[in-house]
């Protein structure tokens, strides 16, 4: 009996030790990629900014590529791509070369590297034509000058891959449960967030005011603050209060990712302080 007890304790200790080790590494939640808004009338400069955001986010380019100027990595460094793109392939302008290396990466393999990039117009990256134009603008700007706009036409573009087609298919997927169509404001009311948070006044209630949430937090931070409120507790507030209340109302069981996004977008729009 004594032995059985000792073995039990030992087992729990070893498992706890590994759990502990795992708390020591960076704790990061990864959310499904966010959409970057692209307006039809964006200037080239705006496209560059949007493209940079896509490259670091939905495009996942930075999981492979570096933009540091260091060579010798496993994937081509992109710090000077805007400069060298025009000379890469005979008869191709810089825009054409960049487009090909995104739509059809295995057509031309950069010297010293192995094939390995998947066409970014296909899943899993799945960028639409407009997003790809933004990325091209960003790539041009690295060591060169961006020239493309959303009106630039490329022969790799297709009907199915345009933003409109993508939006239609997304709407199709989203047309599920009817609660999906609630607005952010309705969701905020439905789960009684307002009992603890004000979105109209800077004064805190039971929880901090969110009237300036759009300026105070990035959307990723808002996601985290909602899904895991106790990860970062705002000063002077009680940890566990919000999660206990939301658990009690069944918020975490009921909220879908679509609704969560709506809610976060709603909070991100609260810019009372500016």
């Amino acid at each position, binding site marked *: 009996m004594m*032995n*059985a007890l000792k*073995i039990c304790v*030992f*087992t*729990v200790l*070893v*498992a706890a030790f*590994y*759990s502990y*080790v*795992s*708390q020591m*590494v*960076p*704790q*990061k*939640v*990864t*959310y*499904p*990629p966010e959409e970057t808004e692209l307006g039809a009338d964006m200037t080239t400069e705006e496209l560059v900014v949007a493209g940079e955001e896509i490259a*670091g*986010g939905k495009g*996942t380019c*930075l*999981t*492979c*590529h*570096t*933009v*540091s100027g*260091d060579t010798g*990595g*496993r*994937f081509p*460094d992109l710090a000077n791509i805007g400069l060298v793109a025009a000379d890469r392939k005979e008869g191709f302008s810089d825009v054409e070369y960049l487009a090909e290396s995104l739509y059809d990466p295995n057509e031309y393999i950069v010297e*010293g*590297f*192995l094939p*390995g*990039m*998947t066409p970014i117009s*296909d*899943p*899993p*990256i799945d960028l639409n034509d407009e997003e790809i134009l933004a990325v091209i603008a960003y790539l041009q700007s690295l060591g060169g000058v961006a020239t493309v706009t959303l009106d630039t036409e490329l022969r790799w573009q297709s009907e199915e891959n345009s933003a409109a087609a993508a939006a239609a298919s997304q709407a199709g*997927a989203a047309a*599920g*449960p009817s609660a999906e169509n609630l607005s952010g404001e309705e969701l905020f009311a439905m789960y009684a967030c307002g009992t603890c948070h004000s979105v109209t006044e800077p004064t805190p209630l039971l929880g901090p005011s969110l009237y300036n949430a759009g300026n105070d937090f990035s959307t990723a931070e808002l*996601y985290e603050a909602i*899904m895991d409120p106790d990860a970062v507790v705002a000063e002077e507030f009680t940890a566990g209060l919000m999660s206990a209340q939301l658990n009690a109302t069944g918020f*975490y*069981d*009921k*909220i*879908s*990712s*679509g609704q*969560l996004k709506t809610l976060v977008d709603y909070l991100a729009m609260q810019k009372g302080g500016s």
Partner: protein
Amino acid sequence: MKWLARRLPAGSLLFLMLAGMALVAFWAPDAWAQDAAGPVEYRSFPVVGSRVVVWVIAQLHLMFGAFVLAVPMFALTIEFIGFRNGDKRYDDLAHEFTRLLSVSFSFTASLGALLTFFLFILYPRLMEYLVSIFDWTFMLYACVFFLEAVFLYSYYYGWGKMPKWLHLLLGLGLNMVGIAIIFIADSWLTFMNSPNGIDAEGNLLSTWDAINNFTWMPINIHRLIANICFGGSIAAAYGAYKFLGAKTEEERAHYDWMGYMGNFIAIAALLPLPFAGYWLGREIYAFSQSLGIALMGGTFSWLFIIQAVLIGNLFLAANYYLWLSMERIHGAERYRKFTKWLLASITVCFIVWATPHSLVATVEEARAMGGSHHPILNVLGVMSAKNTAVNVLILTTYLSFLFYRRANKEATVSWAKTGNIVQFGILAAVVGVVIFLGVYGYFVEASVRIGLSIPQVGLVLFAMISITIIDVFMFRNARILGPIEWGKIPNRAQYALFFIAITFAWTMGLMGYVRSGIRQHWHVYGVMRDTSEHAFTPTLGYAANVVSVTVLIFFAFIAVVFFLSSLSGKKKIEAEGGASS
């Protein structure tokens, strides 16, 4: 209790209980309300959420499955050795290992049923899709599973009651069917990571191509080996558990030996595992670099640091056990002075291996560093250094085994001295070249560097095989310095065995998580998106806690298995005791 042990309805009882609980949970009115709203894609599970229930049950099913499939493999091998050399001890040991099977088999089946049940209820859309791809394989699986039950019970209950050759044949059948089971199940889950045999819309083109996808064979092999390792370590833990409770010297000797054999199997299977792992990694990269990068370089790079800690601990504990084991052997003193060097070598390798490759915490951070590679840790962290470290780690453990093997022997052949020098020469040369290739890797292009691991692995295998062959010949007719005194081993050593078993179970849990985790927000990578609330990837700390809880539940079950198994063994020992007195 004895009746329980004999009839073994424990599994079915448990299943009924859990199924009852699940039914109650789903009779909640809101589950019906969701049904009324049209085709359901997901249903939610109270308190912990759908993802965690399916996760935990799948992992438990996997662990029991791994155990049930692995034990027959080495039970048969041991039985066969006993059959060939006529040593009754081997036959008894094999039988004792098999005794752990029947309760575990009921658990495996119940957990499998529970898993299916939850998957179809909680993830209807995904399951509908998978059924459309794999239709007939599910039927085949059911049939093969049934066959497994037939073989397993006739192998177990038929022990000693039929001609040996027939019994061995049954054992072979059992293993064939077991391998078929794991291969079929692997096809489903590998398809989700590396889909194949479908068109751009995800419609089925060929079921065989879907089965034979990129990662199917590598996972089959990696799992097969890992399962043997896991099974051996659990069997060793059983030996350790019995050893600690043993009343007589005889029992101590017996269970010491059982623990040793279980551990030997586990470590022998552990040595080739990293190679199988790298092959798996290569195939994942070959299927999609994005998936490969997610695995090793991006989101999950920190997970492999935890894996390195686990594997490092496994190697360390295994070596520690061998060193302690030498205490039961006369003549082993001669080798004791080497242990500190072995320990040093393990430590250095471990540190290199645990150095992270790229440390991406956030995209912002990655941008600030101008990409995903950390300037300082880059050097020790890349594949080149890691491959080298693992290879040296394997060689060190091999060396511990070699010392153990020789502990009470003195070579009598005339060329013993030359033999030793040649062995040492091979070892030194291989270590030298392996390290050289590791360093050389920094000076060549990526495309060349990736190929360097192959000669490294080849050399390590060459060293282990050639040194063993020389050793076998050199210690033929060796002078025996003293007997192995089974049972003469400190209790610490038994805890080392528990440690290995727990660490292994935890590794399986963690790696099971990364296999599903790398798909991120996809159910079927690039084909079917996860649109549920659980589409996000949780933190590693969270995942680790789920793994820990799973491991503890698993060992609670295993305690039941051990308990029931030793009950069914008691009758025999009592009966034998009665006959001899």
